């Protein structure tokens, strides 16, 4: 097992390097010349020859004349900086400088990341709390009216674009019933008396986005739990258990559900890993500042250092996540040997 994990880690490094290189070169496709931008103001005051010389020296200074590979490695922190001595890249903890926010990327990310995690934790817990019992119930009572109705309703959340669901829910909950505020992560201009107040205010603001997110994800998870449960219920040991005269509840929750959990648990884990990534659509619609909205803002404003940093973070999360899923599969189900 240890060897297997080590091997996979090796792969992760290689794959990460390739992905990061691909992304880096992709962003470099977009025409952008920081040297020229910096010199633009001087252009009219310099003679063309002077300008050209200054431009070229600035390019050298910024390392723009180096090959794409060198620039990439430098950005990564595997090649010496333009001064030729120090390393100052991603691996050294320099995530770059956001042109849009005029701050270091790492400082820019903190707040939106905390908002996104805050929302996602609630949404994940809520959807698990709904989908698992619902899935089990539907599996036990399969092909009954309730089951079919659930299938259609959850499907609805799955087959409509999120922004439509968000606006319909907003109309019902915010405009019609006045339960939740429409936008923002906190009441505009408010000063909190204490932390508890701040927390409840934030909670009130994120409830509707959480409901919308949950509604959108019901379809997939319910179906997953349901089919895993049906599979488990069809097994012989269930028949045996029933034959033994065990109570139906015990059969379902103690025998069947435990076995159905195996395939479900990996997807739950994958889900928890996705709490870092925010939804552009939901965050834009509810004017929340989260990772999705930030990423989007960066993309739209050509703030590539910011976007690349976020991108790299997501890549690592997803690569490590898939390793964790594979390992957990082995841990949960002793029959599965992942290192084969």
């Amino acid at each position, binding site marked *: 097992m240890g060897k297997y994990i080590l091997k996979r880690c090796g792969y992760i490094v290689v794959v990460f390097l390739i992905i990061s290189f691909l992304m880096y070169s992709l962003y470099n496709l977009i025409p*952008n*010349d920081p040297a020229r931008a910096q010199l633009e103001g001087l252009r009219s*005051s310099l003679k063309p020859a002077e300008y050209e010389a200054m431009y070229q020296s600035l390019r050298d200074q910024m390392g723009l004349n180096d090959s794409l590979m060198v620039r990439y490695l430098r950005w990564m922190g595997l090649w010496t900086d333009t001064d030729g001595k120090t390393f100052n890249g991603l691996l050294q903890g320099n995530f770059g400088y956001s042109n849009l926010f005029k701050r270091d990327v790492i400082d820019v990310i903190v707040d939106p990341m905390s908002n996104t995690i805050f929302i996602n934790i609630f949404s994940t817990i809520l959807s698990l709390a709904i989908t698992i019992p619902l899935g089990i119930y539907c599996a036990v009572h399969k092909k009954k009216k309730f089951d079919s109705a659930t299938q259609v309703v959850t499907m609805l959340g799955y087959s409509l674009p999120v922004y439509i669901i968000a606006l319909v829910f*907003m109309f019902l909950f915010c405009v019609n019933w006045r339960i939740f*505020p*429409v*936008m923002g992560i906190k009441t*505009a*201009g408010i000063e909190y008396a204490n932390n508890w107040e701040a927390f409840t205010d934030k909670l009130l603001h994120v409830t509707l986005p959480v409901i919308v997110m949950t509604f959108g994800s019901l379809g997939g998870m319910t179906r997953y739990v349901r089919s895993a449960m049906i599979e488990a219920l069809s097994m012989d040991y269930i028949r045996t258990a029933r034959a033994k005269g065990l109570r139906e509840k015990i059969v379902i929750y103690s025998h069947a559900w435990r076995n159905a959990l195996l395939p479900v648990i990996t997807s739950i884990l994958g889900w928890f890993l996705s709490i870092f990534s925010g939804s552009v659509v939901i965050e834009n619609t509810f004017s929340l500042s989260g990772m999705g909205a930030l990423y989007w803002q960066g993309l*739209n404003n050509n703030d590539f250092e910011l976007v690349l940093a976020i991108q790299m973070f997501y890549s690592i999360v997803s690569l490590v996540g898939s390793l964790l899923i594979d390992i957990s599969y082995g841990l949960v189900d002793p029959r599965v040997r992942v290192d084969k």
Partner: protein
Amino acid sequence: MTIAECLTYNNGKAMNAKDFVWPTVLACSKVLFDLEGATTTYTSVEGGQDYYDGKVPYVSGLRLIDDYTFSVTIAAEKLPYYYDLGYAAFTAFDIAYWLGEGYELKDDGEGCYIAGDFTAEAIKAQMEYARFNAGPDRVSAGPYNLVEFDKAALQATLTINPNYVGNFEGQKPSIEKIVIVKAEDATWADAIKTGSMNFYDTITDGAHINTALDIIEEGGFDYVQFDRPGYGMVNFACDFGPTQFVNVRQAIAKLLDRVEFANTFCLGWGGVVNGPYGTAMWQYKEAEEWLNENLDAYAYNPEEAVALLVEDGWIYNADGSDWTEGNIRHKKVTAEEAGTYAHNITLADGTILMPLIVEWSSSEANPVSDLLKVMLAESDATKAAGLQINQNVMTFTELLNFYYRDSSQGDKYAIPTYGMFNLATNFSSAVYDMSYEWTDDPDLVALGYNLNHLFDDVLDWLSMEMVYGVSPEEPETYLILWQKYMQRWNELMPQLPLYSNVYITMYPDWLEGYEQDSYWGFDKAILYATVAE
């Protein structure tokens, strides 16, 4: 000029004349240029040019007289100027906050200069910090302090500045706290209905105005209505491709039913304009009838459009034969006219044919672009006329890069690529100064003047003469020149003006005394508003 002695910054620090003068010295210096700021201030202040060129280390036109008095001398060639009062506009900034410690404005008897390490590198970091900083340590002198700015959420919080002594009329604000948020197009109506927002400054879209008025009818809100001091238009690149020919520009104007366009787009909240003016301008109000009589409205008329094209020589097919229906028109052009235009065809005998294909750069998610695409680019009349308009959807930044031909963002932008851009403009103040807008000075063009690249002596002369040839006491002379300018502009069609709309601002009905108009914006009007008892 003498300033009042009671003025202070928000942190209580007293102001003197130096606080008002140093920003102008900065504006006259090359340092600002190196900081990527563009200005022509140095050309209007006497001695500014010399200071800018580095010939002398001071601005001779700016003098400190005593702690509260200073003087400015305007360069002789910049007078008379119709809006000469604008030369006397000075704003106070705290030098220590903006440039850092160790800087001071000095006047040794020959003119003002900034003492200290006054170079771009030295001040850049502090300037950037000062610009983007929000919080209690921000030093400003306005009626409100910026205490919080969340750029990711686009939300700013302003609180009243207790040290503000009032505007020119001595007016002080009374609203304690203002939170400015970005309204999402999709949800603003719900946000207002539920009280998340209670003030919407400048609603522009006709459909949005109708929604706003529905909400106002339900109670709790009031509104003011004012004309837009600007207009929406299609900009042509007048130096390359088919749009370099005035007949083509006029034909495009005649192929678009602008009346129907404005009906659909403004829903009655706005009208069609035929020149570079907004319906809010006093010039327009004075000269409305004259404009009606003398400007060509280019009423929708595909037949006349075709006639204009034929007259200009757009009568060939791609192979050089006479134009036949269903094809794109071509014109025989000289190599100079052909320029960098991408679609040119060179025949075997060496004649260059330019096809009537206009590359249109349009910004994304923009209802004007969508409507133009439907009504102009896709219209049967356009196709029947042998004109093809290719829509190229891009981000607004990208559009501006192409529009400004901004090579600093990439070499491809420097090459003229698009013939048409849809944009809108607002005249932020009552100053209608179009000088240098039609200049043929290559330096100024490179700086972003004359963005239509239309080099017309008459238009250039009119635009300069209108403000630099008229003293403020002669509004009649000014108006005559203004009308001539409009007429010439209208003939040359460097832009196709589309509409000038009516705006409304909705505010809660407990706000009293809020009066906004085209030139008296939220920032000024809010000072007079009070909360009703």
